[in-house]
């Protein structure tokens, strides 16, 4: 599905991503974790075309999309959400989700000018689709009103619904749990699984270890732009390099043990 090969990205002299290689298979949930500034979002931005990588290859379904513009990558079936919520604030909730239908909605300018049957049909289809995905993410709130009037957690749902209305093959979620309360996180966990059950592959950046360990098929760990681990959650959790990345090099045995407890314990929560 997604293959990232030896990805490098530098800003001036700073290497934000330094030789990252990972893949996401069809129907798989892969989490990318790492301390702040490890290059996770930079890597996502390279994959979705917002940054041009300095070196490396990005392939989607075998097609090379390295350095192409974001809209073209979206056309290949990739959809994303943003770390700091990027909804269209001054538009209605439904319109926000209709943005996802842009790529597949069959409607020409002539149809819109003359209000042909095709126009009416496609508009109805777009609205039905938007409602369908808003139901899917169980949005509570006024769909006809402006999205900026919704509470933060609901706006996050709208953003996910918008990404899903694209009918993606691969969905990239950038810290979807940030700013959510405990109950909302539990609902998010359930939502991510239901998205996977639709056959959508998911790449996830997340700091909430409980969520990551619970939901991921595989975990990729980054530190200083370098990949330090890649494997199933149980394996990554015990990896000394991972614990070191989170704690620092000079951690003594007791601290490593404490960290192991913390990362491991998160699962039982």
């Amino acid at each position, binding site marked *: 599905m997604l293959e990232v090969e030896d990805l490098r990205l530098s800003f001036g002299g700073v290497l934000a991503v330094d030789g990252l290689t990972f893949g996401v298979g069809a129907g798989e949930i892969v989490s990318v974790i790492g301390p702040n500034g490890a290059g996770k979002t930079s890597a996502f931005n390279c994959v*979705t*075309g*917002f940054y041009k990588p300095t070196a490396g290859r990005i392939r989607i379904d075998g097609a090379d999309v390295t350095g192409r*513009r*974001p*809209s*073209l990558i*979206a*056309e290949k079936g990739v*959809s*994303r959400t*943003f770390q700091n919520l*990027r*909804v*269209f*604030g*001054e*538009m*209605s909730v*439904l*319109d926000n989700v*209709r*943005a*996802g239908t*842009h*790529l597949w*909605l069959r*409607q020409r*300018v002539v*149809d*819109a*000018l003359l*209000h042909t049957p095709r*126009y009416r049909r*496609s508009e109805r289809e*777009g609205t039905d689709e938007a409602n369908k995905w*808003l*139901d899917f993410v*169980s*949005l*509570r*709130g*006024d*769909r*006809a*009103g*402006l999205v900026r009037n919704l509470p933060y957690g609901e706006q996050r749902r709208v953003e996910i619904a*918008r990404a899903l209305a*694209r009918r993606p093959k691969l969905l990239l979620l950038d810290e979807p749990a940030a700013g959510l309360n*405990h*109950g909302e996180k*539990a*609902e998010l*966990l*359930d*939502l991510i*699984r239901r998205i996977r059950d639709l056959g959508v592959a998911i790449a996830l950046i997340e700091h909430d270890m409980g969520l990551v360990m619970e939901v991921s098929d595989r975990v990729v760990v980054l530190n200083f732009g370098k990949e330090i681990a890649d494997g199933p959650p149980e394996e990554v959790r015990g990896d000394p390099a991972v614990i070191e990345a989170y704690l620092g090099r000079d951690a003594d045995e007791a601290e490593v043990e404490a960290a192991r407890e913390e990362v491991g314990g998160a699962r039982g929560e």
Partner: protein
Amino acid sequence: MSDETGMRAGGGATVQDPPVKPVKGRGPTFVTRFLESRHLGWAGLAIGLLAPFIIATPYAMDVMTSAVVFVMLAVGLNIVVGYCGLLDLGYAAFFAVGAYTSGVLSTELKLPLLATVPAVIVVTVLAGVVIGGPTLRLRSDYLAIVTLGFGEIIRITANNLSITGGPSGIYGIPGLFGDATSDPVVFYYAVLVIVAVAVLLAARLGRSRIGRAWRFVREDEDAAEAMGINTYKVKLAAYIAGAVWGGLAGVLFAAQLSAISPASFTFLQSALVLMAVVLGGMGSTPGVVLGAIVISLLPEVLRGLADYRFFAFGVLLIIVMIARPQGLWPHRSRER
């Protein structure tokens, strides 16, 4: 607490969620419903059709015709500025391109004015591509400055070419239906019908797939791009649509005055059209129509103030923008 969250999460996973009822806010007030009625367009057209029965002096018809042409300009600029959020300070350039194209073709080739319309559309599309192509890669402030420059380039070019008649311009442009019907009332009705169709089509564009794409670009370019909208192409499309609307308004302008000169296409003209869009409410078709009528008729209404009329005009505009920064008739914020 953990019980409650567990229950909610469990409920989502196992049983089907109950259909989520949209939370109803305060219902729309009478005024809101009235202002959002679809029949208001017809009401506006009826007012336009009935106006000559109230006053039909040649001077009044001239002012009213100018106002209707100005509505077309404002609606065209609204596509660029209101829908797509691209600040264009040189919109008069397209007005000029349309007017000069039809003026030159009708006088040099002795074509009837309507026959020049296809050529005008082709030329304005080209002008949109030529001006928009390089400038639309820029964002906000830079775009405004470059469009301002292009507006001046077009005007100065018209001032210096011999085919455009230099500073004295082109005269003897035939009327819309040849010279036979020069009755100002007939001409007014013809312009009114053409502009009404143009307003309707612009409004329909705003409610379509491409119209939504324009608004997405205005709201957040990166998010729009992530949804697969090629923001460059979409912005260029808005620019071209605006150019065609402006160019066709130029044809009507040339037909009305039968003489055009570079003095009609100054930065002041661009600024006035932009003012109509902002005053009426960016992105709102009824608002922009109202704004254009206010901007074009207010100086005439204030004529009694003699030398002070533009002073009063300016003060009134400032008061309106302080009292209603969203415009006289802003774009509706919720769907029906």
